[in-house]
């Protein structure tokens, strides 16, 4: 899952908070406002224009490419995938264009999905969608022209799926469409849990081949500027060419109602008449205050900085909602570089780490629970892992404020009799250059210093951090203090396999940041991958979760929540899957 990368990439470029990535992971009702709930949805009044304040543009409008939350915010208003989540339940996907849940064959190798008839595209396409459009949407995501961030990861088990990006869009033999309403996917490996889970992602938004083909023939595809839309809203476009005239990158996105949308086929109320995304609000403090004190405004890609968050909590509590983001933030230690290849050194670092100090850089307890593992609360496998408390045998994880006695014990076990690291080298550390990540990194630096580790501390934009350093093993970065992984869909495999599986280490775009390649962990992951969805699968992944935590490849420090703010006259409904305001459910009070 590269969604965090994209998401944070955007935030890094803005110099805004890289705080709230990707989807949610829970139906927790810990939110502090009136938003998010069905009650709030019921209050909606039709009409009005909502303005979303954003720092920058969405990554892509093209559903085959979008991979960060702000992109999802817009995409789920203008597009409908096979399955999606109602705002207040990120655990149980509901049928969107599909008529029922995916049917998986007994051998786990065939998935069948039926779609609703009569779901039409906005102008200029105008026709009803078919399963052929979904087949094409998946196929194009494997092409070099449409660089999808996750197609190969989650749909790579489809029979005939390319192992490398194809030159142009090529058919995938494992995807067939017996009729316009039926999609059949054959797998080469029994990984139906992942494939069906990932059907909530925008890759299953239909793409009309006859319309998109000329755009997809270019590299990169220009479909992003001409996307067809099947959701309740559409970006204003040229009714002949389909060009998205309402999208001015870096300036604004103008969304209006889709005249071809049929309410009876959708569960979304779509209260608003129009939605305007105002970009260029790079000062998160200013835009946050504007929202809290203004009218008809919500936040888009930027989250309120910690001081504004404090003010919002104290002065505007009903205008703030905190959505569990379904992810873990951690400080990665490169397990392939000495002395961090020594598990006792890593345990010592984790033991010494003041994880509470790290959390305070993002706003304190309000932004989430202190983490000890990689499956977040209310996520399958979380309770099976032991919930909020780490296993008692992992004493190095016991004290969230750090325990120097335990740290010293492990340093001695690692061969450092004084309990401190005695080497003189400085370890390359790549941190983000924007707060609050910058501040978190400085706290991390101080934690390493407690044990005598000197860091060669370098600050770069968050996207550079991922694309040039932490995601490139050759760069030999030792410490990555600003990484995090957030779910794409509700399955523990999506949280653990890309990030801690040895064979998942890539030369470029690597997300196994600690470069953990432990044979026992790899074997356990291999065994858990084909397990069918259910308690057995959750238990297996929970065990792996604990197994990884015991190897201390990283310092997990928060299972965070995304703060969303709105103006007083906005009935904001947060989507707990995408951890953004749900534009199809939000409304205005008048």
């Amino acid at each position, binding site marked *: 899952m590269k969604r965090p990368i994209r998401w944070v990439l955007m935030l890094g470029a803005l110099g805004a908070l890289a705080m709230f990535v990707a989807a949610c992971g829970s139906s927790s009702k810990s939110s502090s406002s009136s938003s998010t709930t069905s009650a709030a949805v019921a209050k909606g009044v039709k009409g009005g224009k909502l303005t979303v304040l954003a720092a920058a543009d969405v990554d892509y409008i093209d559903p085959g490419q979008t991979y960060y939350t702000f992109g999802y915010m817009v995409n789920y208003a203008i597009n409908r995938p096979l399955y999606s989540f109602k705002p207040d339940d990120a655990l149980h996907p509901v049928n969107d264009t599909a008529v029922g849940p995916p049917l998986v064959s007994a051998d786990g190798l065939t998935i069948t999905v039926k779609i609703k008839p009569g779901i039409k595209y906005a102008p200029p396409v105008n026709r009803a969608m078919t399963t052929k459009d979904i087949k094409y949407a998946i196929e194009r995501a494997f092409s070099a022209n449409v660089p999808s961030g996750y197609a190969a990861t989650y749909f790579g088990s489809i029979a005939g799926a390319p192992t490398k990006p194809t030159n142009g869009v090529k058919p995938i033999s494992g995807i067939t469409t017996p009729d316009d309403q039926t999609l059949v996917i054959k797998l080469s490996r029994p990984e139906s849990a992942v494939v069906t889970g990932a059907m909530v992602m925008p890759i299953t938004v239909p793409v009309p081949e006859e319309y998109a083909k000329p755009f997809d023939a270019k590299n990169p595809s220009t479909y992003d500027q001409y996307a067809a839309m099947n959701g309740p809203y559409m970006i204003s476009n040229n009714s002949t060419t389909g060009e998205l005239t309402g999208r001015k990158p870096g300036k604004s996105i103008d969304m209006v109602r889709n005249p071809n949308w049929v309410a009876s086929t959708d569960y979304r109320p779509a209260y608003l008449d129009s939605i305007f995304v105002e970009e260029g609000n790079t000062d998160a403090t200013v835009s946050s205050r504007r929202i809290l004190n203004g009218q008809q405004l919500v936040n888009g890609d930027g989250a309120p900085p910690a001081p504004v968050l404090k003010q919002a*909590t104290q002065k505007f509590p009903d205008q703030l909602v905190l959505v569990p983001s379904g992810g873990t933030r951690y400080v990665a230690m490169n397990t392939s570089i000495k002395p961090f290849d020594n598990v006792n050194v890593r345990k010592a670092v984790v033991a010494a780490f003041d994880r509470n100090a790290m959390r*305070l850089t993002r*706003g304190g307890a309000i932004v989430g629970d202190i983490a000890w593992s990689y499956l977040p609360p209310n996520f399958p496998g979380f309770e099976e892992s032991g919930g909020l408390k780490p296993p008692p045998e992992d004493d190095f994880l016991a004290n969230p404020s750090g325990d120097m006695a335990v740290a010293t014990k492990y340093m001695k076990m690692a061969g450092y009799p004084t309990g401190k690291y005695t080497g003189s080298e400085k370890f390359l550390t790549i941190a983000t250059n924007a707060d609050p990540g910058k501040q978190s990194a*400085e706290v991390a630096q*101080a934690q390493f210093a407690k044990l005598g580790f000197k860091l060669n501390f370098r600050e*770069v934009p968050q996207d550079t951090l991922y694309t040039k*350093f932490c995601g490139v093993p050759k760069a030999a970065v030792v410490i990555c203090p600003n990484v995090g992984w957030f779910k794409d869909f509700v399955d523990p495999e999506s949280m653990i396999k890309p990030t801690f599986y040895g064979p998942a280490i890539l030369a470029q775009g690597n997300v196994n940041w600690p470069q953990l390649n432990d044979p026992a962990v790899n074997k356990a992951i291999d065994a858990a991958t084909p397990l069918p969805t259910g308690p057995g699968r959750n238990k297996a992944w929970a065990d792996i979760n604990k197994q990884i935590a015991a190897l201390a490849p990283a310092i997990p420090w928060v299972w965070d929540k995304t703060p969303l703010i709105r103006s007083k006259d906005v009935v904001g409904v947060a989507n707990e899957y995408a951890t953004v305001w749900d534009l199809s459910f939000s409304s205005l009070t008048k």
Partner: protein
Amino acid sequence: MPSITGGPVEDHNMDDRLSDPAAAKAIEAKSPLELFWRRFREDKVALAAMVFIAALALVALFSPLITKMVGARPPNEQSTKFLDSFGSASGPSQENLFGTDGVGRDVFSRVLAGARVSLQVAIISTALIVIIGVTTGLVAGYYRGWIDSLLSRFMDIMLGFPVLLLALGLGASCALGGGCVPVDYGNLGRFLMAAGFVVGVLWVLYARFKDSRSGTPEKHTLRDAAVSFIPFAVFILLGGVMAYAIGGKGTLISLGLPLVIFVIVLSSWPYMARIIRGQVLSLREKEFVEAAQSLGASDRRVIFGHILPNLIAPIIVYTTLIIPTTILFEAALAFLGIGLQPPDASWGSMISDATEIFDTAWWYMTFPGLALVLTVLAFNLVGDGLQDALNPRTNE
């Protein structure tokens, strides 16, 4: 223009004053240095600024000791004890005189640590600017012709650099690994020392030999040899710093103070060079220069022995004006993230960090900001005072 060195410098303003016997008598009783001091101390504001700078220098030098004495925490020590449950900084208190920053560090001790950085940058950068600027200005102004054209156009090019963009670019490209332009400081330093010494000695011997062959009646003294050796001594000194203060393998430009100093010097030396060049163009036409040349004085003797001493006053004045500029420059670069790397403190980076929380943590921007303003103001006032004191015409 009198020299504050008290050396044998021709005073061209003297003639006017000598026409007044009373004034001449008063002046005869004082050395140029005494005259300068008498004028300078009359400027109470400049004197107060000088005292402030002296105090600042002491604070910068002994900041760890002062931090300890007042019971403050070390500048890089973080503490969640001084943050509230939202992670917000706490204001001035007995424990933290100037309050804390967002990770619970003591702003007071960080302001003191920042003073050290500011002065360090100011002194090193200014020294380099003066050395490069004065040397270039002397050569360009004295020789004129193609040498002047070449050096002047080079200065124009340097002045044409978009400095902030250059700094940001270098900051980005030199941020990683060890930095840019790998270099073995140990070997390079030793080479510079040896080369500087050998070439310098040969140069001095050659000059002496050349003068004796041409039958120059001027007597060669040890002072002449020393003056001739000055440029080479700079190389030897530079080499010594490289070999023994820095040492080992590294990079020529690395993120942090070296990059800041590099950018400041690169963008500032032409200003100094232009001023000196202008002065030299004027001085070289004076009678005392013609007299020295007619006596057979070599170029280097005229430049370093006769012209340079007459430039001391403008050099001092301009230097005091460069210092606050470099301090501000460093702060600006630190504000943009091209300066000291965390956790070390500098005023610019503190102000930068404080911008987002200014309304909730006023102290975080106020104290480093105040320190910066007062320091720059003090240097400017001293600069003005020096200018008044060193230029008798102003006083008259």
